[in-house]
């Protein structure tokens, strides 16, 4: 899918050179995309920091009026939203993972380079949407977790919350795209010899994080879609007077929100697991346990969301269950902390800035972890609900854990990315400013919380005894701001005058240090063969570490030889640039804007741009639809086609999407008041359409069998049958919807109507996309080259089609059949 039809002659330049502005706008190089992510994320990190400083100035004294209450609420909302979605996640995933994954596993790019570009541009559009409120009546001001029903139009009128909702949907979609890419890359594109248990720990962290994102973002998307429908189409998903409950939002949000904590923490753990062994010059202690504990954390993170909701009264059983799981998750996290300490223990330490930050992270994150264990105890957690104690806790986790790891990673990988060294002197200065500023800002918050100060208050009374600690925090927040200013200065200075970086400045252990700094466009002139964990270390020092001892002792590590760095003798196929990811994402932005300002012509303009760009992207290369991965360009370690792994991952994510919709339907069916209920459903008619859909799956199987034995005619017949049966299903659905509408059941009537139409409607949309996909294949089959070698294209469409059918079987059973059983 990715390879260019013509061999692209690659100059022996590094990836940063050439191309001009157009080159950057159309790039599909994972390294350039990582840099784009990095620039935008550092911008939002600075903005989020300024927002935090304004918040702190406002809290300097009781009754202060530095900013208005409205502005204060906007600032803490945008501080949370941008730090999480636009700064920390993009830095860890968009920048670090994007740049380092292919280099660490010995690949030349990610599995889907154009989708990678797409995920960056879409995320940028999401960021723009979130901030467009500046120009349209104010920024969103409902808090970063936007608890319903405050977010409803009757309590938050105007555009700001519309921008927030759509911006998050768009940013979430881009994150799903990005991590799908990482997962497939790690499964299929590891270099020969790079088994899972030889991957650097950072890759392990990103692999598991990707799975977390794929399964955690759909509930958030569903929650946001409900909000969007409430705000635009008059549904009542969170409106109490219709019988709904705003608690539904909290469940959907925290089902995403707690895994989200680990989506941020796991890559941070990964960075630390790279930095600590390098500067201790020892292998990572307990590698298998480190890998398994990542998996265990990910698994448990789905069972702890309730500890955010102890105050809502979930009942003793749910409270106890969530308390136990929250306590359990401390165990694998403890394993990680102890393994890092054991790695440092007895190591030959080199105290670089990066290592300082890594050690700082271990310390500060442990503090955050300890106050986290306190939250596992439901009665204690209850007392701390929405107090400043919670603010202290999660800043120790997110700043002390994630941001410290990001800073360690920046100092560690900066030479590889830019080819220049950062100043260690400024770095150490930044470290000490950060440590002082960070602890001074957030440690006193524990006490303020215990003394009763709630979070998110614009100002506070004078007689409460909160003033002095708040002033200390404000001073320290300024010091923290200064620390980041030093970092930005250091970065600019390094690019302008920094010392030139050698390929391997830190005596590194993984493969990214075996290529030039900055790396060439093609990453590796020859795909490396991996002979063990710490692949590059083994190349340098041999398996036993006996080789190159003199170099090791002198502190000047062996560098890759000139022959290693020489450009390849033959041209390398690299993915060709594409403008369509950018155009597609502009379509997303335009369509979203149209929705928000309610101008349907603009929505159509955006949607058409989007669809045309997507189709153009599909047909851009004549290799479309072929197993096109050049073995040179992308060594596959699994033997499975990247697109197949991709579609399976996508289906996994979709399962959670439908599960959230189905769960909502089941909850709201029982709370229906007024309006028609499930008795309106017509079983015989729907049984007929269900039968048609099931038969279409059979026809799909036969179509695939036909193309696999190279029989184009029969493939067309069976594919046509599948499309026909799909259309029958859609036709019946359309009739059913119109019929219900005439009976007085619409999206706005009652809880049953809205959850029924949303669930069945989204399924119908999936069937329609499937029909379009199959129709494209049907037309493509008249092309000359469509023979048995193209069977994978049919197989992929088939996988999606079967999935949609299985979802329907579940919907039919739960919505139609079970309803009747209950009624009888």
């Amino acid at each position, binding site marked *: 899918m990715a390879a260019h039809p013509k061999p692209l002659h690659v100059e022996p330049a590094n990836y940063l050179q050439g191309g001009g502005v157009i080159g950057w706008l159309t790039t599909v190089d994972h390294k350039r995309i990582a840099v784009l992510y990095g620039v935008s994320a550092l911008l939002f990190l600075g903005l989020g920091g300024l927002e935090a400083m304004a918040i702190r100035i406002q809290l300097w004294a009781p009754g202060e009026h530095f900013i208005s209450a409205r502005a204060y609420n906007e600032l803490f909302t945008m501080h949370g939203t941008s730090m999480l979605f636009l700064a920390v996640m993009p830095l860890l995933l968009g920048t670090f993972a994007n740049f380092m994954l292919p280099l660490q596993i010995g690949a030349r790019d990610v599995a889907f380079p154009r989708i990678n570009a797409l995920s960056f541009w879409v995320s940028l559009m999401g960021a723009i949407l979130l901030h467009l409120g500046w120009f349209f009546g104010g920024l969103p001001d409902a808090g970063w977790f936007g608890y319903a*029903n*405050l977010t409803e139009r009757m309590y938050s009128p105007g555009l700001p919350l519309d921008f927030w909702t759509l911006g998050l949907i768009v940013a979430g979609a881009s994150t799903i795209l990005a991590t799908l890419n990482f997962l497939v890359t790690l499964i299929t594109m590891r270099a020969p010899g790079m088994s899972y248990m030889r991957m650097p720990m950072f890759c392990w962290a990103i692999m598991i994080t990707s799975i977390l994102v794929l399964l955690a973002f759909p509930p958030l998307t569903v929650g946001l879609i409900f909000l969007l429908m409430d705000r635009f189409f008059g549904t009542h998903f969170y409106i109490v007077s219709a019988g709904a*409950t705003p608690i539904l939002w909290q469940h959907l949000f925290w089902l995403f929100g707690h895994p989200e904590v680990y989506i941020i923490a796991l890559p941070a753990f990964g960075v630390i697991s790279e930095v600590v062994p390098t500067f201790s010059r020892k292998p990572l202690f307990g590698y298998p346990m480190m890998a398994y504990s990542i998996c265990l954390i990910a698994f448990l993170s789905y069972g702890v969301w309730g500890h955010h909701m102890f*105050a809502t009264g979930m009942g003793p059983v749910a409270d106890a269950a969530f308390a136990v799981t929250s*306590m359990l998750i401390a165990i694998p996290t403890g394993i990680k902390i102890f393994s890092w300490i054991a790695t440092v223990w007895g190591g030959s330490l080199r105290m670089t800035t990066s290592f300082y930050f890594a050690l700082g992270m271990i310390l500060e994150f442990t503090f955050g972890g300890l106050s986290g*264990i306190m939250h596992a105890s439901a009665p204690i957690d*209850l007392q701390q609900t*929405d107090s400043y104690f919670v603010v202290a806790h999660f800043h120790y986790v997110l700043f002390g854990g994630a941001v410290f790891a990001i800073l360690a990673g920046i100092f560690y990988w900066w030479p590889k990315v830019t080819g220049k060294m950062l100043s260690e002197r400024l770095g150490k200065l930044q470290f000490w400013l950060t440590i002082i500023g960070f602890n001074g800002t957030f440690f006193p918050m524990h006490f303020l919380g215990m003394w009763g100060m709630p979070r998110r*208050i*614009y100002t506070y009374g004078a007689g409460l005894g909160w003033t002095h600690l708040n002033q200390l925090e404000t001073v320290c927040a300024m010091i923290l701001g200064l620390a980041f200013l030093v970092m930005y200065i250091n970065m600019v200075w390094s690019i302008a005058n920094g010392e030139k970086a050698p390929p391997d400045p830190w005596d590194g252990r993984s493969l990214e240090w075996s290529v030039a700094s900055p790396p060439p466009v093609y990453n590796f002139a020859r795909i490396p063969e991996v002979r063990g964990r710490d692949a590059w270390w083994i190349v340098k020092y041999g398996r036993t570490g006996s080789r190159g001892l003199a170099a090791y002792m002198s502190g000047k590590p062996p560098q890759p030889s000139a022959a290693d760095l020489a450009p390849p003798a033959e041209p390398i196929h690299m993915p060709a640039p594409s403008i369509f990811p950018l155009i597609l994402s502009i379509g997303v932005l335009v369509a979203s804007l149209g929705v928000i300002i309610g101008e349907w012509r603009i929505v159509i303009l955006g949607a058409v741009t989007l669809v045309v760009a997507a189709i153009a992207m599909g047909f851009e290369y004549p290799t479309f639809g072929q197993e096109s991965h050049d073995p040179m360009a992308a060594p596959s370690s699994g033997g499975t086609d990247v697109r197949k792994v991709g579609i399976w991952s996508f289906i996994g994510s979709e399962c959670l999407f439908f599960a959230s919709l189905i769960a909502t339907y089941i909850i709201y069916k029982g709370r229906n008041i007024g309006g028609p209920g499930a008795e309106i459903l017509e079983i015989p008619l729907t049984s007929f359409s269900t039968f048609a859909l099931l038969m279409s799956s059979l026809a799909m199987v036969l179509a695939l069998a036909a193309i696999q034995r190279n029989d184009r005619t029969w493939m067309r017949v069976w594919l046509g049958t599948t499309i026909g049966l799909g259309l029958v299903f859609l036709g019946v659905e359309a009739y059913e919807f119109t019929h219900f509408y005439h009976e007085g059941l619409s999206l706005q009537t009652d809880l049953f109507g809205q959850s029924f139409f949303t669930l069945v409607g989204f399924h119908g949309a999936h069937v329609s996309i499937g029909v379009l996909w199959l129709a494209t294949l049907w037309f493509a089959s008249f092309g000359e080259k469509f023979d048995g070698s193209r069977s994978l294209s049919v197989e992929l469409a088939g996988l999606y089609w079967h999935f949609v059918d299985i979802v329907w079987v579940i919907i039919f059973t739960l919505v139609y059949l079970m309803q009747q059983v209950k009624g009888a």
Partner: protein
Amino acid sequence: MEAYEKSFLVASGAVLVAFLLALAYSVFAMGISMPGRMEMIACTADQKLRKVLRVTPPFDNPGVHETAPGKFDVVVIGQTWSFAPDNIELPVGAEVTFRATSSDVIHGFMIVGTNVNMMLVPGEVSSETYKFSRPGEYLLLCHEYCGRLHHTMSGKVVVK
């Protein structure tokens, strides 16, 4: 397995058991209760929650009600951005059951320095029982962000 490892395993196990015991102690011996499963307020379609509350006992009559000697029911409605009532007077030693709800968005209900800490969800009744054994003026705060003037939403409980 080395002796070191064994002793660490035992120590970790002991810490876990200690945590669980502390949890059990706080719940059973100290009587810290969690907000229980909430009662619902029945809504009929197309009626504003505020109107429904006006005719739904006990919220048709918010305030302090003595149910038995020394026992009180305090009925509170949280609304944007105030509590009704926002000045609650109680005698020392009163055993109070707070029954509270919200008439619009989600609010918080926290009495600083006590175990009373609830979320007021519109359409649901939150209850919590607490015994005020020390006299004084307690701060009643909304600690769930509820909009523009959230920081002004407060009241006081005076125990004499």
